[in-house]
């Protein structure tokens, strides 16, 4: 039997990988890819807690489904922003998007 800790560690590792991607990538699309990894790590936790807690209480699965919705919305708007910026500035490198800095 797999103990809960294994799933939690998997989720933590995946979250850290996603965080690494978000922090170091220069391309805005790649940063969003990292965000997806982090959201998935959260979902693994939610489903694991559902399975290892009270199975008849569906809160874990409901929240997972809601996270799917949030992820979809995030990707839709995030990528639309990237495309919009690309059409105006002709770049998707996050460092060069410094218009709002001053």
């Amino acid at each position, binding site marked *: 039997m*797999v103990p809960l800790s294994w799933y939690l560690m998997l989720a933590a590792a995946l979250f850290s990988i996603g965080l*690494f991607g978000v922090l170091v990538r220069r391309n805005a699309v790649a940063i969003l890819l990292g965000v997806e990894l982090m959201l998935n790590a959260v*979902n693994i936790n939610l489903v694991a807690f559902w399975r290892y807690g009270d199975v*008849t209480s569906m809160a874990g699965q409901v929240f997972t*489904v809601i996270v799917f919705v949030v992820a979809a919305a995030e990707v*839709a708007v995030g990528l639309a922003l990237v495309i919009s910026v690309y059409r105006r500035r002709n770049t*998707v490198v996050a460092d060069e998007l410094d218009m709002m800095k001053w």
Partner: protein
Amino acid sequence: MTGEQIIFLITAGYTLGSGLMVVTTRNLVHAALWLVATLFGVAVTYALLNANFIAVVQIVVYIGAIAILFIFAVMLTRKDLRDNTPQMNKNWWVGALLAVLTFAGFAFLLQGWSGFSKTAAAIPSEFDAVGALGEALVSPNAYVLPFEVASVLLLAALVGAVYLAFNKK
């Protein structure tokens, strides 16, 4: 070591390995394809956790829609696709350090938690998870409000994204 544990370890290794490829691959289309591989591994994890509905939805929504959207977006912004500039920040090691510290922090925090190495009880044989999820999503004293708000959120995302991607100025 039981068969289930072996399957879990293979899945976890596969998921984390492809996750690492997502954040390190230079070619963005490859990164998106590695993301698909990671998402598939996560779907297998859900299947191992007996969350059938979530596992299938993971594939339908993430691989079927979100990954496709990513690939389309990469093709639309393709100027930076094959350029020779570095794909990572100059001080990437700070990010790496932070990520490792985050992981260590999680591990440390979880280690002290009493329920950390809990094992799962068997699912009751007559339990209908999909039906229970449906009931939870629609019954007024459970999660009907998040269910409806999800719709509003999707509407906002659609309107916002359409507006953003297409305001011609």
